[in-house]
């Protein structure tokens, strides 16, 4: 991998997009970047997102979204799934949440 590679987030997967300014659309299949880990904290009884220098304590819907970011589910499918579990989580909110993670390069998007 060269330093000019647009996906130098610590991953070498081809055909991925990440970084600021990337818009999330319904056919994208989000996948957590390899340097980010989703885990469960027994002490806090909460799902946690871990990064080399950052910890994010997730709420229930945030955790539910991230668990579906496996590179197989599309954003549209994730929105539908969240809608059945949490009536109060509209699709726009899911897309905004994912867009923020893509902008921080914690999430990659594959399409097709």
């Amino acid at each position, binding site marked *: 991998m060269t*330093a000019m590679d*647009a996906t*130098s*987030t610590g991953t070498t997967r081809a055909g991925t997009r990440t970084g600021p*300014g990337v818009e999330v659309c319904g056919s994208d299949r989000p996948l957590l970047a*390899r340097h980010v880990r989703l885990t469960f904290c027994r*002490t806090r009884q909460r799902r*946690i997102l*871990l990064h*080399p220098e950052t910890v994010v304590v997730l709420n229930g819907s945030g955790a539910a979204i991230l668990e579906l970011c496996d590179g197989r589910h599309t954003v549209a499918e994730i929105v539908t799934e969240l809608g059945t579990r949490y009536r109060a989580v509209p699709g726009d909110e899911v897309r905004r949440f994912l867009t923020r993670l893509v902008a921080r390069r914690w999430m990659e998007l594959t399409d097709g």
Partner: protein
Amino acid sequence: MDSPFGLLAELTYRCPLACPYCSNPLNMAGYRDELALDEWRRVLAEAGDLGVLQCHLSGGEPLLRRDLVEIAAAAHDLGLYTNLVTSAVGLSRPRAERLRAAGLDHVQISIQADEAAVSDRIAGIPSFRRKIEAMRLVKELGWPLTMNVVLHRHNIDRVADVLTLAEEVGADRLELANTQYYGWAWRNRAALLPSRAQLDAAEVVVRAARERLRDRMDVIYVISDYYSRYPKPCMGGWASRQLTVTPNGDVLPCPAAQSLPLPRASVREDSLARIWAESPVMNAFRGTDWMPEPCRSCFRREVDFGGCRCQAFLLTGDAARTDPVCHLSPDHHLVAGAVEAANTGSRAGDPALVPRPHRARRPDRIPRGSG
């Protein structure tokens, strides 16, 4: 009181390098009785139970611990996000492959400048080439790589070239951290503190590079707090989010706190949970009750937590004073004076840098339970 998120595990203060900005304590001989592997395993397990999620394996040079792979494996097996903070001297391919297999998540490699002669002069030993090779190896093995460069008067003018080097080696993150004045850096402050013109020029370069590289590299810039109006929110508040365990098992809110006149707490004498919750060292400056004016009535008291207790102690002799970096501090002249000195006089009159001792000494005795 919250649970801590991060553990800084300082495995040894031995180091092959001799950087004059090192934040390790001046009395390194007091830390030779290093915790053994079994003791670290217990500390890591207790940290996990306490709610710690991230473990930074640091030093000194953690690669000088022969049992580093076992320590990293223990942290990983507990589910901790595990980060190696290293000079990369000693990161051979077999060692790196074993660390990868042990589950180490992330590697941070320090480098002293973008160019061999300058980097090696600051580090005190020829190390630049090995560091570059190690960075390429880290990328080849699929780790995310952070390059860390401590900035000071002798290298900050080269920040554009440092950014180019980080791009060339494919770093995912670049930490450009202005020197914090503790340990050996405190002793060398007059020789390390850059001028305002140097900082201004560097910040222009960094801002432009951040924009240019935003799709492929995180560029973190740690400002020089001596030049700030307000102090840094040190550690997110005293004993609030993180804790440090020193090579001999002392527990501290941060590595610099060893310099403060507070009672010791050691994992060799008590559990991490009880130390975190009850020890005098952890409770000395927790919350806001300890604060003097001007912090006590300041709207920023929960923003910067009064700044850094260790900096207040080093500058004033009293850890409970407002961090003198703050322009509202009655002791601010102590910082202003150092800044003024860094902005007058000629470079030819610069004080000499005192390197920290860099002999990679073995401990005086074999740690219990090692091997």
